[in-house]
Each structure stands twice: as structure tokens, then as C-alpha cells.
């Protein structure tokens, strides 16, 4: 725990950030919340671009960044900041933008410049000015520029929000690779849970300027008492291991808690560990194992918790060994099946998304 934050700051439109937390010194911590929940204000305070109120404190690895009567200027904090709108210098080429950062770096960059350019696909863009780049190219250049400054902490403020689907997927994959390869703590602001599920190890749930919950994303994703479970796209994250490739049917088999799940075949090494994202709305419940179903993924689970979230619908937390799934079913179905906590049932899973292995190597 090495970024200590005790922060109060007035934002725009009468909104107020009031937050006390510690953020891990490694891996990716996602700051998740609806727009207007204070995510960007938090990032700006950490970066030193905005002054918090008197009595606030920000400490990074024992260095005071902000406290009463003291504020380390942004240019001395050695942070990298990837903005939503890239903010490349329009009068410099991509190479010039990278050099601007490299010349002011206080340490060796985390990756040699050539590696970085290669990895981010910037080699052919080096001589271009930002005005002629696509949104995705700009954002890749901005990530490269931030890393060239050899930051101790990388802040990312919804870096994918302005990108189209393809560019966003490409950028996300790059960020995953960087998160795995670099020993660089990242703070990633987003309001998109799918992005966050791919990338984050830990999660700060922000609601209207307050910290609602903090913890590992895998734990938080399957809990019923956070706002996450009540969102339309609520989904549990489950860890699995690639166990076999079924070439005949074009499927990849994944083992989780002794059970087997099937996804469309992907070229992954057997034994590698992956995250699976299982949306609550795609899980249905059967009392007995359906024998004549087209659905492949049917797992024996135990009902761990039942929550009547809305009048017509229920949220179930299902234990699969040590891990958990979420299921959203109608109140009527729950009544008809007579579901109780502790019941052994079968979860029929309509869709499974295979995510990265970021941070889950252990």
C-alpha cells in the first residue's frame, strides 16, 4: 500500500470528492464509477493538476505530494498521465512528442525507446504530426510519451473512451501487455466494466465522490452488496486454466474448480490461466442437469446468497468451489423452483467471455 490518499476537493457543479484510501504500489488499480462520481478529479489531485482542500494529504512511497501548506508541483511528481483526449503537442511530430518526455525524464524509461516504439506500433508514425493521426494512433503515441518520461506511477483517464471498437480493443491489449511487462503501478479510470475486468487487479468503486468499496476485482465482481452486481451488465469474473483444445469441434476447454467450461477455440497454450467473464443475465438455473439442452456450459453450483434486487427480478450468488458466479433470474422462476440458500442447483451459462491473464499469474 503505497499511495496514501486522504482527500477533499470541490469539483464542478457543486459536486464534492471526499475520499480516504490506500492504493497498491503495483499492478493495475481501476477507479470505477458513473460519470460525475469524481474519478477524474481524483486523478487530477494525484497528478498535482488540481489543488485539494486544506487538510488533504497525498503520500506516494513516503514522499509528501500534498499536505497542508505543501504541494509538490506536477512537474516534480514524476507521474505519467494518459488523458482521454491524448493532448499530444500539435507543433511536434510523434518522435518530437516522445523526445519532449524523454529529455525531461529523471530515470531510464521502463522500456528502451526502440522496444516501446515497436510495441506501440509507432515506427511508421514517428515523422507525423498529431493532426494527421487517427484517434487510436494518437492514444498509442500518448501512452508512449507518458512512458518515455519514466514515471513512477501511470495515471490513465478513460484512455479508450474516444476510440472506435477496433482501436479500443487494440489499445486495451497493449495496456495489458504493458501491465504485465512493466513494474509500474497504474491507476486506470473508467466507467466501462468490461475494460476494467480485462485490465484491473484491484478496484476502487466511487459513488458520488465517496469510496464505496475497495478490493480485488475478482472478489468484488461477485458480491451482491456493491453497486456492481446491480448494473445491467453485471458479471462475475472466474479464474480458469486452459485444459484442452478440441480441434474436432473447434472449442477450447477451460477448467475451473474441477469443472469444465467450453469457449470457441482460441490459440492458447494448455496450462495458461485466464479470466472468464460470466454475465449475470446469461446464467439461468435448473433444479436438475438438463440432458437435452444446446447449452454446453452447465455447472453444478450451490446457492450462496439470494437478493431481491428489484420487484420482478432476483440476484443469486452461486458458489462454484471457492469461486462465485452471479445469476439474474425472475422472481417468478425462483418461486416456481422454490430456491433457497444452500440448495444444490445447476447453472446454465449462455455466454462466457475469455479475458486476459493480467495479474492473475499466481
Amino acid at each position, binding site marked *: 500500500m503505497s499511495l496514501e490518499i486522504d482527500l477533499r476537493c470541490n469539483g464542478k457543479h457543486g459536486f464534492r470528492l471526499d475520499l480516504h484510501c490506500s492504493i497498491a504500489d503495483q499492478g493495475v488499480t481501476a477507479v470505477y464509477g458513473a460519470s460525475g462520481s469524481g474519478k477524474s478529479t481524483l486523478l487530477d489531485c494525484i*497528478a*498535482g*493538476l488540481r489543488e485539494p482542500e486544506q487538510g488533504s494529504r497525498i503520500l506516494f512511497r513516503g514522499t509528501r505530494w500534498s499536505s497542508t501548506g505543501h504541494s509538490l508541483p*506536477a512537474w516534480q511528481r514524476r507521474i505519467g498521465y494518459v488523458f482521454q483526449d491524448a493532448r*499530444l503537442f*500539435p*507543433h511536434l511530430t510523434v518522435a518530437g512528442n516522445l523526445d519532449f518526455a524523454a529529455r525531461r525524464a529523471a530515470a531510464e524509461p521502463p522500456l528502451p525507446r526502440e522496444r516501446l516504439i515497436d510495441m506501440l506500433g509507432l515506427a511508421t508514425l514517428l515523422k507525423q*504530426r498529431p493532426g494527421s493521426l487517427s484517434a487510436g494512433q494518437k492514444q498509442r503515441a500518448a501512452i508512449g510519451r507518458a512512458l518515455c518520461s519514466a514515471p513512477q506511477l501511470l495515471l490513465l483517464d478513460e484512455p479508450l473512451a474516444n476510440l472506435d471498437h477496433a482501436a479500443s480493443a487494440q489499445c486495451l491489449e497493449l495496456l495489458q501487455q504493458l501491465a504485465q511487462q512493466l513494474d509500474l503501478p497504474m491507476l486506470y479510470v473508467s466507467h466501462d466494466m468490461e475494460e476494467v475486468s480485462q485490465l484491473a487487479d484491484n478496484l476502487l468503486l466511487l459513488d458520488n465522490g465517496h469510496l464505496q468499496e475497495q478490493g480485488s476485482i475478482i472478489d468484488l465482481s461477485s458480491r451482491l452488496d456493491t453497486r456492481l452486481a446491480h448494473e445491467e451488465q453485471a458479471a462475475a469474473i472466474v479464474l480458469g486454466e486452459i485444459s484442452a483444445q478440441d480441434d474436432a469441434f473447434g472449442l477450447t476447454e477451460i477448467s475451473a474448480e474441477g469443472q469444465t467450461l467450453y469457449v470457441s477455440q482460441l490459440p492458447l497454450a494448455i496450462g495458461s490461466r485466464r479470466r472468464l467473464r460470466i454475465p449475470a443475465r446469461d446464467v439461468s438455473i435448473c433444479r436438475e442437469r438438463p440432458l437435452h439442452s444446446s447449452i454446453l456450459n452447465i455447472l453444478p453450483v450451490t446457492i450462496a446468497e439470494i437478493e431481491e434486487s428489484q420487484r420482478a427480478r432476483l440476484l443469486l450468488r452461486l458458489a462454484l468451489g471457492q469461486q462465485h458466479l452471479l445469476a439474474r433470474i425472475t422472481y417468478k422462476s425462483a418461486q416456481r423452483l422454490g430456491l433457497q440458500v444452500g440448495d444444490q442447483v445447476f447453472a446454465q451459462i449462455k455466454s462466457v467471455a475469455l479475458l486476459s491473464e493480467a495479474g492473475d499469474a499466481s
Partner: protein
Amino acid sequence: MDVILLTAALAGTTTIILLILGTPLAWWLATRRSNTAALVEALVALPLVLPPTVLGFYLLLALAPDSPLGQLWQQLTGTRLAFSFSALVIGSVLYSLPFVVQPLQSAFQNLPAGVLQAAATLGANPTDQFLRVVWPLTRRSFVAAASLGFAHTIGEFGVVLMIGGNIPGETQVLSIALYDRVETLQFADAHRMAFGLVAFSLALLFLLYRSNGRSAWRVRV
């Protein structure tokens, strides 16, 4: 020839002082939104709407030998302030202020959003930010501001007449000399001066507008 040199010296000195004073003032106006800022902005713009004689009249009072400023000047330099070259510089600086501040202010306001914040997170301190980001992005506006300040100072008449008088070699600039020639019916001289001013101003403005035209490099993000 003295007249031309004197006019150029006045315009040059004024422009340099205006760039030094006008740049921080324009930056302050571009980044603040308050009643104070609005008042300062209005004060800066005042010479655009007031008759030059109004400004000249007040300056005449302020620079007079028995005024506090006149006394201070006398003590510091041992010379009289009223009807001197220095008085002309002071008047010209005030009179041409909007022509330098306004283009700079608008250039600073039009800097692409957040580039300075980006520069700060990359380790650039404020001086570094100004030299490496603001200056390259607003260079053209500095050229425009300096040109307008220079040309406008050359073209000024009323203020100079009020506070400078008509002392050859000390305060007699082109516009005054022209007036003088017409008064004494030396039309040939007057023609040369008038035409010279028209040609110079036209050439300067033409170059300025051409360089800021469609082909000009523009900021895109």
C-alpha cells in the same frame, strides 16, 4: 531623415516594452475570469474607443513637472519628463497596448486544451512550458502583435501632439512633421511623408495578413 529615425526609434522602443509588459498581462487576462480581469480588459481596450486627445490630456497632467510622476522623474534622471522622448514612449505604450495584448490574449485562449497540463506531467516547469509549448504554438500571434503595435505607434498623432509637442529631433515624429508641413504649405514634403506612411503600413499589413492566411500553419489536435 531625422524624423524617420526618431519615429522608428519610438515605435521600436514602444514595441519592445509592449511585448515585455503585454505578454504577462495577456496571459493573466487569458487565464482569469473575474470582475477584476474584466475591468483590466476594459481598461486595456479603452484607447480603441477614446479620442487620443483624452488620453493625451490626462497624460499631460500626469507627466507635468509639478505632478508626482514628473517630480519623481526629475529626481531620478535629472531631466524633465514632459515634452520628452520618454514621455512619448509612455504615451505610445498606453495608446498601443490593446494592439499587442488582444492578439496575444486570443492566442493564449486558443491554445489546445490541456497541452500545458500534459507538459507539466511530463516534467516541464512553467518556464519550460512557455518556451517549448506556448511560444512555438503562438509565435505567429507574437509577430502579429509586434507588427500591429509598431504600425499603430507610427500612425499615432493626437497623443503625441498633446504630450510631445513638436520639438525636431526630440519629439517631432512623422505624423506631426506631416501636419507641420501642411500648415506651412510645404505640400511636396507632405506628399512624400504621407505616401511613405501609406506604403509602409500597407506593406506591413499585407505581409501580416498573407502569413496568417489560409496557407498558414494552423493548430490542429
